[in-house]
């Protein structure tokens, strides 16, 4: 579904359905038809890039712990706004099994951090001077503590690479904050 370029609302379900390309069942096909029916109701709806928007990057991340019923992998999702306009979003299956929800949330955070880093590289190339630092929102308290706390615990040892990545980004340029984010599920 090439439509994911202007319709963020079907990004999640497309990601779900594309997991079953190998051996789809009638249920999957019906679900896919459901998406088409949904699109039929709003074919002309897309994205609006407002003229009076500011140039601050805002990111939102979330994870769905053990969301895949067959393999018990978790899902990560993020979306990035430049001011009020949505520029980037993604829903993706994590490739390792997480044992706790914080772990899954943390992977989602570091996954979004990668994208944020890339966006930060892109900004100067497009001659954008960000006045305010980018903010990355996530809805999990323990993740924010892990990101802010420099001490490694026994329990976060296996997350080390992800930890360092997000932490480095936090100290260098961005702010990770708590929020109740309703954009992803």
């Amino acid at each position, binding site marked *: 579904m*090439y439509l994911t370029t202007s319709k963020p609302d079907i990004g999640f379900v497309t990601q779900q359905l594309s997991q079953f390309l190998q051996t789809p069942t009638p249920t999957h096909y019906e679900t896919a038809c*459901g998406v088409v029916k*949904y699109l039929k109701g*709003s074919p002309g709806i897309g994205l609006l890039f407002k*003229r009076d928007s500011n140039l601050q990057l805002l990111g939102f991340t979330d994870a769905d712990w053990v969301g895949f019923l067959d393999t018990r992998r978790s899902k990560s999702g993020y979306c990035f706004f430049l001011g009020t306009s949505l520029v980037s979003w993604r829903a993706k299956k994590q490739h390792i099994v997480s044992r706790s929800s914080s772990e899954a949330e943390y992977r989602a955070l570091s996954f979004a951090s990668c994208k944020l880093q890339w966006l930060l590289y892109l900004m100067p190339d497009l001659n954008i001077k960000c006045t305010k630092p980018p903010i990355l929102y996530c809805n999990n308290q323990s993740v924010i503590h892990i990101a802010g706390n420099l001490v490694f615990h026994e329990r976060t040892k296996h997350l080390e690479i992800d930890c360092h990545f997000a932490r480095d980004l936090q100290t260098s340029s961005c702010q990770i904050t708590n929020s109740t984010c309703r954009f992803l599920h």
Partner: protein
Amino acid sequence: MKAMNYELESLKQKKTWIFVDTPSNVKPIGSKWVCKVKHKADGTIERYKARLVAKGYNQGKGLDTFSPVAKITTIRTLLELASIHSWHLHQLDVNNAFLHGDLHEEVYMSVPQKVVSPKPNQVCKLLKSLYGLKQASRKWYEKLTGFLFSPGYKQSNADHSLFTLNTDKSFTALLVYVDDVILAGNSMTEIDRIKALLVVEFKIKNLGKLKYFLGIEEAHSKTGISICQRKYCLDLVKDTELMASKPVNTPLDPSVKLHQYTTEPFEDILSYRRLVG
């Protein structure tokens, strides 16, 4: 028929190949004609198009074929910027883009249909790249990149298909998606200058203000720039034969749990793949 002649004419103009006697130890690759009807954004017929393609799948492995395309995030970010700063947004289309690439490797193609070689038992030695060749898109990209450096454009490191020119007064960005180009900037003179340069070097079609790019429809208004894919959406609905069905309010029913292999597999796997993939 007319379209085929037009295509042959432009191939001849660019000196795409020369005729040589068939060298021994070389197996020439085949070619064929592909005909297509081009549509406008509203679905009406724009023109008929014929394209001679080489059967690149018979080429050997190990060629350098990578060529970058614009990331969709970059396109959206650029639109957002253009919206905020009220930049000019223009769109260009390069005619026969891939035919511009110079071919340095030796590639032989058997004489295509509708073409007569001067002597029998000859093959075409390709000098320019042809559609269907494995390295075609890369050669075109290399050619364009090399060309853009001379008027002072810089390639972005984050997205290799983004080129920018930054002077004290003006800022111009040029985004390449294979043969489609978006030009955005605050100075009309610079946009006109680069357009004129491109016209001389490549045959480009100036499509004017950005309206329809990669199947995405752009609309400009006072509040901002909006994008949607109405045509693609409706085509999808038509293809799945769900035109008569009732629209639903949510893309995914939260009560549906998707599992693997719980029931019999769906018989028409291909249509599922076409729809989702």
